[in-house]
């Protein structure tokens, strides 16, 4: 679905992402973990075109359902040759909107929605982008009902339908995190990159977000950044551990948990379910700050 080879990003002397070979399969939920500053968010920014890699490449194999030209935006394709014979398309250095129109959408670690628009409009405008109708300047947006219906369907899915008419800024933190995922979903993605959807969410609301993650994983390829190891162990098909920009483990959750290198770098004696040990409290404080490079 999505793969990188030798992906490297350097900021001056700091190597934030170091020679990462990574592949995401179309039907899996893969978690990306690592200590703060390991390069997880930088890795996301490289995948979505926000940052240009220093070295290496990002390739995407879009699903059969996504036709060329579906992106609707002129100049959105990175090369006219389109998908290669094997279906892989090089998206290294593509603009963020091009990556998005090819079916890779993301949510943000710090809520990043349209604050003064209604909850509905947040999702509707994203659906409209995916439908390629953004440049339509003559129709009244309220008459293009397919996007409104689609937006309501997504709000149902993220459990916000009853708050559709409120401005996004009026939502509670937990609800904003749900909207954050909703906006990403509305772009009709094949690949969904979720950057700490649980960041700062109170323990009572965590279950709702976890259910949401598991739900979207049923019909999307998901790459999840998450600090809460209980959630990672529960939902992941596979776990990739990043430390100082490099992949130090890539395996099934249980195997990663028992990997001595991972224990040393990140988990620090993590046992499943032990909520009050050092690693977990470390993780929960870590999830509240955005202290990663870039």
């Amino acid at each position, binding site marked *: 679905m999505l793969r990188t080879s030798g992906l490297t990003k350097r900021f001056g002397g700091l190597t934030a992402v170091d020679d990462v070979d990574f592949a995401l399969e179309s039907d899996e939920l893969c978690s990306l973990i690592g200590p703060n500053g390991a390069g997880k968010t930088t890795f996301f920014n490289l995948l979505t075109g926000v940052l240009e890699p220093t070295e290496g490449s990002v390739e995407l194999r879009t699903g059969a359902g996504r036709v060329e030209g579906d992106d609707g935006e002129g100049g*959105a394709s990175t090369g006219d040759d389109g998908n290669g014979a094997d279906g892989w398309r090089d998206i290294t250095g593509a603009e963020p909107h091009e990556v*998005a129109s090819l079916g890779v959408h993301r949510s943000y670690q710090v809520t990043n929605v349209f604050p003064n628009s209604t909850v509905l409009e947040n999702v509707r405008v*994203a659906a409209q*982008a995916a439908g390629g109708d953004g440049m*339509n300047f003559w129709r*009244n*947006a309220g008459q293009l009902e397919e996007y409104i219906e689609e937006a309501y369907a997504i709000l149902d899915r993220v459990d916000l339908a009853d708050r559709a008419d409120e401005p996004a800024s009026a939502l509670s933190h937990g609800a904003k995190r749900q909207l954050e995922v909703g906006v990403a979903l509305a772009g009709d993605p094949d690949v969904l990159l979720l950057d700490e959807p649980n960041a700062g969410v109170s323990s009572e609301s965590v279950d709702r977000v976890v259910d949401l993650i598991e739900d979207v994983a049923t019909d999307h390829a998901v790459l999840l950044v998450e600090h809460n190891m209980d959630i990672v162990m529960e939902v992941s098909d596979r776990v990739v551990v990043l430390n100082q920009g490099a992949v130090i483990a890539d395996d099934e959750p249980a195997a990663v948990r028992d990997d001595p290198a991972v224990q040393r770098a990140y988990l620090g004696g993590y046992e499943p379910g032990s909520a009050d040990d050092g690693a977990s409290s470390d993780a929960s404080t870590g999830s509240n700050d955005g202290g990663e490079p870039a």
Partner: protein
Amino acid sequence: MVLAFALYPGVYALLADSGLSTEVVAVLPRIETLVVVLFFGLFAMSFDFISGYTGYLSFGHAAFYGTGAYVVALGANGKLPALGPETPFMLLLVLAGVAAAVLALAIGSVSFRLSGVYFAMITLGFSQVLYVFVRDWDFVSSAPRDGVAVTGTLEGFRIGVPGVDGLNVAIGQLTGDSIEGLFGFINLSPTEVSFYAIGAVVLVCYLAMQRLVHSPFGRTLIAIRENEERARAIGYNTYAYKLGAFVASGFFAGIAGALFVGFRRSVTPENGFYFLVAGDALLVSIIGGFGTLAGPLYGELFDASVREFLSKEGGGGGLLPYLRANVGDATLATELYNGLTVAEAIDTFLNGHAALYVGLLFVLFVLYVPNGLLGTARDRMDGTLAKAVPRRVRRWFDG
């Protein structure tokens, strides 16, 4: 509101003839001022279209207004290639818009590589370069610093439906048509005819912009204003959208400039290209309501009315002549402080200081009415006025 504008000349004439004549003339703006309100309001709306909806302050917007104005002035003087002085005004109007739009495409394609205050500064830079260029370009007239007056044609510019003579009227203070006996009882002076003709063009432009604002394209612009990073992340090529909006905005600014010359028949670099022209648009946009589209027109109406009310104008009404004429002599001669009489005080504080008071009002607006006139009205009424007012009236009648 359209109706209110349409009825204004009649109401004004009626009131000016009534017993309240002096008060009415003192307080209400003249029709001539309202013509200015219309075309400058259109310019302010075009400014709001780009700045209020995408959040990019187009500080050099005067460039498009000036371009539109100069295209008409030069066209009417026969200085544009392939166009004689007899070129119809409606064609010049469209040409002015297109020329401004092309300029906007050129300026925008460079400027939108920047954002925030840098965008404002680079557009300002472009417009000042054009200002200096036009000021010293002796192609436009023999004394370019004094601007261009329309000398190529003595007839008024005609606004109307092309090809239908009966639906065309000439505009201008001196050159316009006057209409007598319309429907048997309506008599219109040239200024009033200009008011309606220019109002019709402004209305068409407003409706077109309104359409754009409510389209998916307009919604995307709002998304860009709200959060450009996210707009890009959900798949919008924000550069193309901003540029498209800038070109449309430039087009309507050019139309506004063309109407300005159509009515005034002259333009100078100072009232066309100078950056304070865009400053005025910003000012009335903030008074009227940023990002409301129609708001800037009301802001301009408010601003022009206050200015006129406070300015000294020979026979045109305003506060100063009113006070002089209607305050008793004994009061006027009363000494207030240290030899200062009331008459002198009025003169000192009012004469020629309109801009000072407008400035103070502007400060108060920014502090206490940050959403502007229309923005605040919409907030209070919970919706646009067109929807909210009938709802209120109905509720009032239902008890």
